[in-house]
């Protein structure tokens, strides 16, 4: 338990002492989304301009117009649904992950770009953690560039494994298993609790793959291993210290739930007082919070890995 708390504490310290980096990561995430935003903005501007005058003059978007728009929308514009508004956005995305809802193919571009950006960011972040001090932009860029190919390969391997999990475990759990359960239980409440239990089972599978990828990345930087041996090292590490790794992950998961709760509560309680541009600012704050948690997960994992690193392991 002490190692878990030490790793968690080290992670928190690393993030708190790197506010500039957090801002830079937030800006990078925004920049990665900008090209797609420009495409959507032009489609939206065109569509809004072609609204019949009866729709003009209202402060909020019209539900009927939105339905009409979606009937004709193609490409990126087809993703413009009411689920993008406020807290509905993270909630629908989380639900899509757990329910295995297929995403429009057009999102493949942003997702692949995000994967590449994070393959690069992880290199810089882990190198900084390893150094125990700020690296400066040039060294951060260099470290990111040095590991981007290896990290992209690790992410690709993780993605392929997750896909197999969705096609097998998820399909069985939320297909015949859940149908069998719903036929057996008497109330909706009971069915929901069973579904949550199945989410936990499937979530555990996803987390296992995610942790394997995390520690493989750390092994690449810290022990200068190639991708395949790094994955083997990661799996060996998780076999030996999986309990601690999961505990750290869950602690950060609690923070994620707290962040979601805070965002959701602010939107529900705040109502129209937190509408308009305020809600956009709050939403960007939420994204920043998520990024902080992601950096925290990386930092805590590096700390935990360092605590149990074998003396004979190659060190950078």
């Amino acid at each position, binding site marked *: 338990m002490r190692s878990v708390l030490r790793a968690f504490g080290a992670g928190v310290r690393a993030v708190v002492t790197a506010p500039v980096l957090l801002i830079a990561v937030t800006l990078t995430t925004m920049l990665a989304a900008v090209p797609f935003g420009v495409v959507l903005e032009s489609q939206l501007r065109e569509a809004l301009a072609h609204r019949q005058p009866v729709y003009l003059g209202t402060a909020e978007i019209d539900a009927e117009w939105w339905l009409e728009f979606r009937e004709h929308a193609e490409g990126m514009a087809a993703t413009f649904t009411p689920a993008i508004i406020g807290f509905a956005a993270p909630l629908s995305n989380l*639900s899509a992950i757990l329910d295995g809802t297929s995403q429009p193919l057009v999102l493949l571009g942003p997702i692949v770009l995000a994967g590449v950006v994070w393959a690069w960011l992880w290199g810089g972040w882990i190198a900084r953690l390893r150094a125990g001090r700020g690296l400066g932009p040039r060294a951060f860029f260099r470290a990111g560039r040095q590991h981007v190919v290896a990290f992209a390969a690790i992410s690709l391997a993780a993605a392929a494994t997750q896909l197999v999990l969705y096609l097998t475990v998820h399909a069985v759990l939320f297909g015949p298993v859940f149908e069998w359960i719903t036929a057996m239980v008497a109330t909706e409440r009971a069915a929901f609790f069973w579904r949550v239990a199945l989410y936990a089972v499937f979530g555990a599978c996803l987390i296992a793959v995610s942790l394997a990828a995390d520690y493989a990345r750390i092994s690449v930087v810290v022990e200068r291993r190639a991708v395949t041996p790094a994955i083997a090292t990661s799996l060996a590490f998780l076999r030996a210290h999986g309990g601690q790794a999961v505990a750290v992950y869950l602690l950060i998961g609690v923070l994620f739930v707290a962040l979601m709760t805070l965002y959701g509560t602010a939107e529900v309680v705040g109502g129209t007082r937190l509408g308009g541009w305020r809600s956009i600012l709050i939403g960007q704050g939420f994204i920043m919070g998520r990024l902080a948690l992601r950096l925290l997960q990386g930092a805590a994992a590096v700390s935990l890995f360092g605590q149990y690193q074998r003396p004979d392991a190659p060190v950078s």
Partner: protein
Amino acid sequence: MLAQPQAPAAIAEAARGYETRIERIERAGAEPLAVRFILKPDTAGRGSRLIDATTSALKRLDEWHGPLAIPELTVIDLPWNSPWAGASYAGTVVTTARALEPPSDRALERTLVAALARQYWPVPAGSSDAQRRLGEGLALYVGVRAIHEQLEGRHFATARWFGGFVPYTTRSIEWSPSPTDPRPRMRHFAEVERPAEAPWRAASSATGGEAQRVALALHTLERYLGWPAMQQVLQGFNQRWRAGQAAENDLAAVITEQRGRDLRWFFDDAFRSGTHLDYGISGFSSEPDQSAAGSYRTHVSLQRFGDGVFTGTAEPASGSFRNARSLRVVTRFEDGTVAEDWWDGRVAEFALTYSGPARAVSVSVDPDAMLLLDRDRSNNTRAPAHLTETGARLAASWFLWLQDVMLAATALL
């Protein structure tokens, strides 16, 4: 009188052992109606919500159609996964109160109101296809309209996630704005039209199907005539319907009797799902007039893209003379002036030309969105494409959503 099909015994069987409450609902001009509520144990606490929704829906629908002519009504609340959710048989309606259903989520009311609306438009077995299509279209139209009126001002976009168990309401998207709001209201609710194929439906309610076309025609008719007139039409036609064998031409006849207007021209195209109605702007330019200094010449080209026509009159065309005012065309100019014109929508192409001291900035055919049957209303208006504040906020919301997608998708890799 028409006899609606009886509820299958399986529905009563599914509700065996449930709590029963009997309420007497007072009605204007008729005996109180005894309503038996059969509530499942885990949602019996929300019985009052069910009773309130039933009472107000019945009062409203009675007002529109005249009193519901049945001796007793049974409202059954079945489990969430029941295949009978939304069913409506003679004197029996089925709803499903969900375990997680906060007051902001109105799915319960929508299901109930849609099923109750169907009680007023019974379609007996053995009816013709045309009558089944009309009956289903009327049930869809009245159901949606009653939902809007019942939930006006407290009806917001709600989606269900996590396997459909967790609802979330987005209060910035209002589904039922005030009736004084001139914008068209949402016409599609899952609780009204799904499942598309169901034993209690007179015809399929599938999107693009014939019953949906009838419902859309009725929504257009309401925007054309106005609700007060449409309500009288509904009541008059409902009397004929309940007497049996009323059809589309009877509906046209009721309108002619009540309004003194021959609307056969409308029924010819509006109720036929194969007919494609689509009007739009095919060209718009406003340039300085070379022959007159300081003057602008504005050309507007209108096009009928579909084979259907919306003429506004049963009179035949008289040469190039426009003898009807069915489609309004509004052109706005930089100096704030507005030119209003009319088109009877008959010819495939129609042009308007204006000369004046200001450049035209926008043009719109059917600016009030009266013709909901128009298949593509995105071609009805030409205006400069600048991003309004609402648009900018929506684009920013989407931008946040995309960042979240990018984060969520890579979180586990």
